[in-house]
């Protein structure tokens, strides 16, 4: 460990990844004082600190700690405004364009694999597991990138009605989706829930894993540099216990996803969802490495079916 102890409190030691990152090939001993990174949240394509000015300390494997934003309800409300403003334009992009943007996130993630692997290791993964997780995350993005311009052909229909009408059902994004990410997965779980939601033109506000938030912040940087329009993905760090209800009760969120094994949180989420007839999807912990957790039906979870009638005549 380089002698890079910060002088300010409560900042903490930088993680070893800064060394890996600096030359991409192992650590280099140096007397240079490192530059510490401020971990911020991601709202509307920008990296503000939480408006609350609060933080929590995230302990890393090597015993050091970093400060993460302890986001507030106001941060969520700001994110919803950003997500709502971005949603229509995102949905209006061509499916081909959205497909390329998801692919671009995959490209960016691939090129920063080393940083993510190092971060996952610092969050407790073994080197081998971290490598597999990052590779699977990239592959998952490519998987959903490919679906952007295909799922609607699978889920739509032309309906043979008994009158002189051309009648078809096509899918549209549900709108703004609030998501509480899997607690146990730093990167892959996050990608696995965000990608199918934005593939169809939804915008999302995601609360990252509290104990593994590091990779979520870095993922924000990847998304920021991948032509994803501002507001399409908003990522917050903080405590579920404080923020879960804000996701399920917010009247301008159309659908809510919560990853939890906690029956009480499931019940509370589904109860709150009734306030504005939100679509609520609560599922337990998953093995995100398993390919069964990727599916066009996960895209369907955030779709509405619209049926259009048009007369046939002269």
């Amino acid at each position, binding site marked *: 460990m380089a002698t890079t102890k910060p002088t300010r409190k409560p900042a903490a030691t930088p993680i070893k990844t800064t060394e890996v990152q600096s030359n991409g090939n192992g650590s280099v001993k140096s007397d240079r004082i490192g530059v510490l990174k401020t971990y911020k949240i991601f709202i509307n394509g920008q990296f503000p600190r939480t408006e609350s000015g609060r933080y929590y300390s995230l302990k890393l494997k090597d015993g050091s700690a970093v400060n993460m934003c302890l986001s507030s309800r106001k941060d969520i409300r700001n994110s919803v405004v950003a997500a709502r403003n971005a949603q229509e334009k995102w949905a209006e992009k061509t499916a081909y364009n959205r497909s390329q943007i998801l692919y671009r996130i995959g490209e960016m993630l691939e090129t920063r694999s080393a940083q993510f692997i190092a971060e996952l290791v610092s969050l407790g993964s073994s080197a081998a597991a971290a490598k597999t997780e990052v590779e699977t995350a990239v592959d998952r993005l490519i998987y959903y990138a490919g679906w952007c311009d295909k799922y609607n052909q699978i889920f739509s229909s032309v309906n043979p009605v008994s009158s002189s009408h051309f*009648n078809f059902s096509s899918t549209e994004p549900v709108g703004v989706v609030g998501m509480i990410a899997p607690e146990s997965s730093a990167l892959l779980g996050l990608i696995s829930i965000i990608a199918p939601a934005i593939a169809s033109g939804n915008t999302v506000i995601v609360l990252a894993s509290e104990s593994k938030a590091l990779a979520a912040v870095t993922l924000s940087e990847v998304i920021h540099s991948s032509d994803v329009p501002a507001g399409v993905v908003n990522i917050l760090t903080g405590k579920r216990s404080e923020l879960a209800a804000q996701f399920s009760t917010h009247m301008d969120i159309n659908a809510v996803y919560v990853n939890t094994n906690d029956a009480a949180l499931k019940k509370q989420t589904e109860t709150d969802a*009734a306030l504005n007839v939100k679509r609520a999807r609560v599922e337990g912990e998953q093995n995100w490495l398993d390919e069964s957790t990727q599916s066009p*039906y996960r895209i369907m979870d955030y779709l509405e079916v619209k049926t259009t009638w*048009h007369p046939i005549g002269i």
Partner: protein
Amino acid sequence: MSKKSVKASKEASSAALDFTSAFVYDPAPESSSHAEIKPQYELFINGKWVKPSSNKYFNTISPSTEKVLSKIAEANEADVDLAVKAARNAYEKVWKNMPGKERAKYIYRIARLIQERAREFAVIESMDGGKPIRESRDVDVPLAAAHFFYYAGWADKLEYAFPGKNPTSLGVAGQIIPWNFPLLMAAWKIAPALATGNTVVLKPAETTSLTALKLAELFQDAGLPPGVVNIVTGAGATGAAIVNHPDIDKIAFTGSTDVGKIIQKAIAGTGKKATLELGGKAANIIFEDAPLDQAVEGIVNGIFFNQGHVCCAGSRLFVQEGVADVVIRKLKDRMESLQVGDPMDKNTDVGAINSSEQLKKINEYLKIGVNEGAEMYQSSCKIPSKGFFCKPTLFLHTSQSHRVVQEEIFGPVLAVQTFRTVDEVIEKANNTPFGLSAGVWTDKGSKIFSLTTKMKAGVVWANTYNKFDPASPFGGYKESGFGREGGLHGLLPYLQLN
């Protein structure tokens, strides 16, 4: 009903058609002699007629005559429990494992029997619910039969509906339906449930139980195994007993958004799946380049069809300024020619309001509209002294904040606004918590698809309105509910995709 004459209103302009001298409709009553209504109906549980454990009955009346038609059993929790047990038993022992092609044949039989007894069903539907016989005969009953016929064919083809998945049934479905399309809603609920291999406990609305009970008779005739469909009658408490029953796997509800929210809360955390088909306040948008006469027919069909007791009714009219005067004039003229009265008369266009309670609610909204400063216009028709009737009504000069614009009235009441630009009308049309349906009238094809894609609504009619078909998925965005009924998409809410 005595002879009705249609008079041109004094307010209508000189362009109004003169019916005064020419058109006098003679009564053309449909005979009710063919319809058999028993003096009392029990609960239909496990293929048999069972007395309610409370021994309580309530009257069902004809809303057009206020005469009692029959007494209906009131199911309590114990009765619902019995019905759920019967449904569970039938599911485990018979229905779940029956090959799809065999299930299909029962459902086809039901469709055929409805067609055979169409007239009886139509007559009872109009007597019990107040809707015009012409509509029961030409819309409700044929569509109900078609719905069973459509879904019957899916029973052995489910693996083709969801690529890459192996769909299986859920178990027992609890279904609660409204009073506006009693038989048709029963068909919308029961047909897909049976096709997908589920069994059913269904509760019709308390004011319109009769056709669901007649449908039970027909299940017996079809030889449907006991317990596959159970019909329990009653009001809200009976519905709550279904929603809260621990052995029900799925709730399908059509009704108000308020009750829908109560149900969504009640089943939170239970793992029950739900389909909610809730309220609406649909925008019907008329552009300057629309075929105006056709559009006026569409406006009338949109809001006065079934007395406006339609969740997808086009209850908010948006007319582009340049044609507003002519459209309103034509609309008023057309309203003058609507025949309002006896539902059993084959000439009737607008029948009876379903219940005194609903009429009271509509009348309250009429007061609210006037008090808020909107201009009320009603057709000059005479309404019968007996029964529950409401004149076709317009509110002119309304704005987005008016309650008659914001809230679902569920009656023959249309709130009219004007607009100038496309962006403006999209903004106004979507500015509602509801999102069930919308209508767009213009001659320009590209404009139609621009509008239909921007409407936040599950069903959009272009140059038509209030069309339904078993092959056509139906259901809402936002607070109009979730899940779809009809078509391929209507299978999904009754299946587990493995």
